[in-house]
Structures are given as C-alpha cells and as structure tokens.
C-alpha cells in the first residue's frame, strides 16, 4: 500500500522537479559559464543538495517499485508474504542505493 503511493509520489516528483532540473542544467550548459555557475551554486547549496538527494532517492524508489509493478503485471508475486517482502525490499534498496551514491559523491569520489 505505502509502496504503491510512494510510486506515484516519486513519479510526480521526478516528472516535475526532476525534468525541470534536467532542462535547467542543459540550458545553463548551453547558455554560458555564468549561467552554469549560477546553476552549480544553487545545486550545491544545502537546499539544492537536499533536493538532489531527494530526487536520487525518488529515482531509485520509483525504479525498484517500477520493477515490482512489471513483475506483478506478469501475474507473479501476488502471494501476500512474497508481495510484502518485495515491497519492503524496494524501500531498503532505494535507501541503500541513495546512501551509497551520495557517500561516494560527497566523500571525495567525485
């Protein structure tokens, strides 16, 4: 239940904020050094990082629950315990992937 709602919420967040930021980033890139600097300043501010980390989590959560939906579309994994375990795994998976990615990105990896 919660994972199904999360799938929608993260999908809406990615559609609006995710695509807007992608478009802004590409526009800033095309516009010139000053525009790119302005984007980078906002993106690396505490609020910018909060949004980017949130969107990373949204992407992984939407990706994993999306895979779950594709599996369920085939008629599999409807048995209650399997279904619940799969749902919980998407939450754990998205949190682990987000933490690993940002630990790498902020921890000198990139």
């Amino acid at each position, binding site marked *: 239940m919660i994972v199904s709602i999360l799938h*929608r919420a993260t*999908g*809406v967040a*990615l*559609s609006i904020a995710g*695509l*807007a930021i*992608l*478009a802004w980033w*590409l*526009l800033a*890139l*095309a*516009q*010139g*050094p000053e525009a*790119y600097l302005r984007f*980078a300043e906002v993106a690396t501010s505490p609020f910018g990082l909060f949004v980017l980390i949130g969107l*990373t989590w949204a*992407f992984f959560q939407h*990706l994993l629950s*999306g*895979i779950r939906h*594709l599996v369920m*579309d085939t008629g599999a994994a409807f048995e209650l315990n399997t279904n619940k375990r799969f749902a919980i795994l998407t939450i754990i998976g998205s949190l682990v992937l987000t933490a690993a*990615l940002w630990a*790498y*990105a902020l921890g000198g*990896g*990139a």
Partner: protein
Amino acid sequence: MSLGTSATPLGRVRGLGSAREGGEHWLTERVTSIALLLLGTWLIASLMFLPDLSRQTVIEWLRAPSGAVPMALLIIVGFRHALDGMKVVVDDYVHTEGNRFALNTLLLFLAVGGGAIALYALAQVAFGGVA
C-alpha cells in the same frame, strides 16, 4: 454491471477504467519504463564517473555521440513517460470531464514544450554552438 451477460468479456472491460480507454497507453508506459531503467541508470553512472562536473567536462561528454545520443533518448523517453504517468494521476483524481481535459492538455503542452527546450539546449551543446 448493467451491460448484462450477453456482453463479451472484452466489451465489459472496455470503457470502464477512469480514462475510458487506454490499452496502448498502458503498454507504452511500461515499454518506456524499461527504456528509462537503462537510460536513467546510464545518466547517474555517467555523472558519477565523469572526472568532475565542470562545464568544460560536461560539454565534452555531451559532444561525443556516446553522450549526446543517450541524453537525447533520455529527454524524449523521459518526458513521454512523465506525461503518461501524470495522465494516470490526473485521470484518477480529477473527475470533472472539462477539468480533466484541461489539465491533460496543459500537461501535454508542458511535456512537449519542456522536451523541445531540453533537446534544443542539448543540440546547441552537442553540435558545438557553445564554448
């Protein structure tokens, strides 16, 4: 179910969803989701493995076909999938026919417009109009 038992199973299903149609839409949403599984992972992996995210590095990356082509696909498929997904949300929660049509039309314009702007910016970068 007032259609009675003479209706075929298909006839009973047809037109009963909140959008009143949409087998093709349903399938497209899933096919684009598989494409985005690859393209989204590609974007994140690329951003992680670029030496830095300075403007010069990113421009060089998007000038190569190996960067520009997947990025163009990501934009097209991403905006399409977002539009398909948002339509499901609108169809589920907006029950007044006129409002639903207005909102879906607005989303269509935003998705096509946003996608076109992103593609234009990418083309400018990829084909060397910027330095």
